[in-house]
């Protein structure tokens, strides 16, 4: 093989190389503000969280905060509840959201905008208001129970809230748009000709849906599911209000520790464990489901 250097003429070579380096440095320079903000907003606080979690209530370095989590079963239960609520909310969101997003994606674009607005409308109301609205609807002498008893559908009030059911109802309502939006986007991007092609090749509408549309909508399902699931893990207001103290999630427990003990270390340790568990789950899921392929369309 011929050496490259020998074949390159020297005319202006050095200044051209210098120009090239300058340009590279400049584009690197453009990304510095972003890098700084990432370090400031993400790396430093998380690093701080980690280091705090190894500080006990006397301000000394210790593993006390983590030992406590093993010692008391409440921590394991709180994590279990957190994942239980998140998984159930996500699953319900997919069951309700998929048909909705499908309907939206099949509606002509000018009408879809209107329906999409209806989906997004709840975003314009405060989370707290929406949550308390559910309380008004679901409680013992709330609208639903009163109405059902008046109509004779059931005789004594049914416990719809201050438990897991109520929490799930509220959470699904709040999380649904987060699932529908990416899913709707993915569905809109599916090539209509692909569906035509399937029909043309002999697929019934049901076959077209399950063999072509559904697999192609999976990236949207995965994106929406991840967003909803991760948002659920850290959710506070809705389980606190609609769970009636029976649904204790990690965020609730963190608040309890802070309010009662001002113990940043113990609270940080809970945060760290939640962060790490979530991370591990994501990595395992990525490996298992080959999420990379689904999300980024690589082979």
């Amino acid at each position, binding site marked *: 093989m011929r050496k490259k250097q020998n074949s390159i003429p020297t005319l202006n070579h050095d200044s051209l190389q210098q120009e090239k380096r300058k340009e590279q440095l400049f584009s690197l320079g453009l990304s510095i503000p972003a890098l700084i903000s990432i370090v400031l907003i993400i790396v430093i606080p998380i690093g701080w969280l980690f280091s705090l979690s190894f500080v006990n209530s006397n301000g000394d370095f210790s593993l006390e905060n983590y030992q406590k989590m093993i010692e008391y079963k409440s921590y394991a239960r709180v994590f279990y509840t957190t994942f239980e609520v998140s998984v159930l909310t996500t699953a319900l969101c997919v069951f309700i959201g998929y048909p909705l997003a499908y309907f939206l994606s099949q509606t002509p674009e000018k009408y879809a905008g209107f329906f999409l607005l209806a989906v997004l409308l709840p975003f314009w109301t405060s989370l707290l208001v929406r949550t308390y609205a559910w309380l008004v609807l679901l409680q013992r002498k709330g609208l639903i129970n009163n109405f059902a008893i008046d109509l004779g559908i059931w005789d004594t009030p049914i416990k719809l809230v201050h438990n897991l059911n109520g929490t799930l109802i509220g959470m699904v309502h709040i999380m649904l748009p987060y699932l529908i939006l990416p899913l709707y986007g993915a569905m809109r991007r599916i090539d209509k000709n*692909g569906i*035509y*092609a399937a*029909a*043309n*090749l*002999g697929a019934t509408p049901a*076959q077209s849906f399950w063999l072509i549309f559904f697999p*192609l909508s999976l990236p949207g399902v995965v994106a929406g599911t991840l967003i909803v699931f991760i948002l659920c893990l850290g959710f506070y207001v809705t389980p606190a209000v609609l769970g009636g103290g029976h649904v204790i999630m990690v965020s609730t427990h963190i608040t309890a520790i802070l309010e009662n003990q001002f113990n940043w270390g113990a609270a940080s340790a809970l945060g760290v464990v939640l962060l790490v568990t979530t991370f591990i789950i994501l990595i395992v899921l990525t490996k298992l489901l080959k999420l990379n392929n689904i999300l980024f369309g690589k*082979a």
Partner: protein
Amino acid sequence: MDALPIKIRSLTKTYGSIYALKSVDLNINSGEFLTLLGPSGSGKTTLLMAVAGFSRPDAGSVLFGEKEMVLSPPHKRDVGMVFQNYALFPHMTVAENIAFPLKLRKIKPKEQADQVNAALATVQLTDYSKRKIDQLSGGQRQRVALARAFVFKPRILLMDEPLAALDKKLREQMQIELKQLHRQLGVTTVYVTHDQREALTMSDRVAVINEGEIIQIGTPEQIYSNPKNSFVADFIGESTILPLTPNNRGDLCYSDSILYSAKPEFNNKNWALVIRPERLFPISNSENPKTSITFEGKIMEFVFQGESTLGIIQLPNSDQLTIRISPTIAASFTDFKTGQTIMVGLNHNDKILIPAN
């Protein structure tokens, strides 16, 4: 496999007050390669979609052989189709894409594999069966789409501008391949394009469509040499259209020369002359014209285009004439220079008469 003829009767489709198809009648012979040619928005794709079953017409009939199909859903029509953007399934491999119609027809896996391999061999993609769609080039995708469309041996094949996304060189190569494939498969093929050259290259017959109506139908030669009106003349090939005026005896004349002797049908109608640029030839000063149809004018522009040279000549009445001659001939006429006067001739056989607009 037996090819099927297609009979289209009074097919009509409206969008609001606009006709996409205006009572179209069309017979496509069994095994024929018919091209629907027209500008965008002419209704050619709507017609194809109605044949495939994707677009429901307002009225009319589509017969495959003797069978009325206009009410059948697309998946029951059993026609192969190649889409403009290929419409391959990105979540499947090449082999899975091609096997898709076979799977739906519940063909045994072993036979599926054989047929897929045969189809892959036909489109020269034998080594690509395991590839994902996004690992293929445009031309390769085109071949996969093709293989998928004919692997289940449909008796009718529809193609919607299948080559539009390819670059010129590849497009011309694929045109030849498609023609060969058609000969090999013998399937009735309806091909949609807006590229008149492509239509001329590939088709047994061409149907020229505009504003939802079939303007003219015929072999490429017929359409080219006998355009029915100025739209066809203009749309297919290059042409110069010159208005003709009748003299007191009813002959059709351009300037002072009589081009067509009087006929009864010339009355009460305006006529025009169509001249194909390549049919014009230059006449040198020394030479005696071999034809009685000659034009003399000033050279406005002479452009070397590789395989031919294009000239624009301005006639004394300021009409413009386009002429296309081979570079060899151009070289022998050294006086082809802008601003000079030149005489060109046209044989009587090459003049085309059309009703003027």
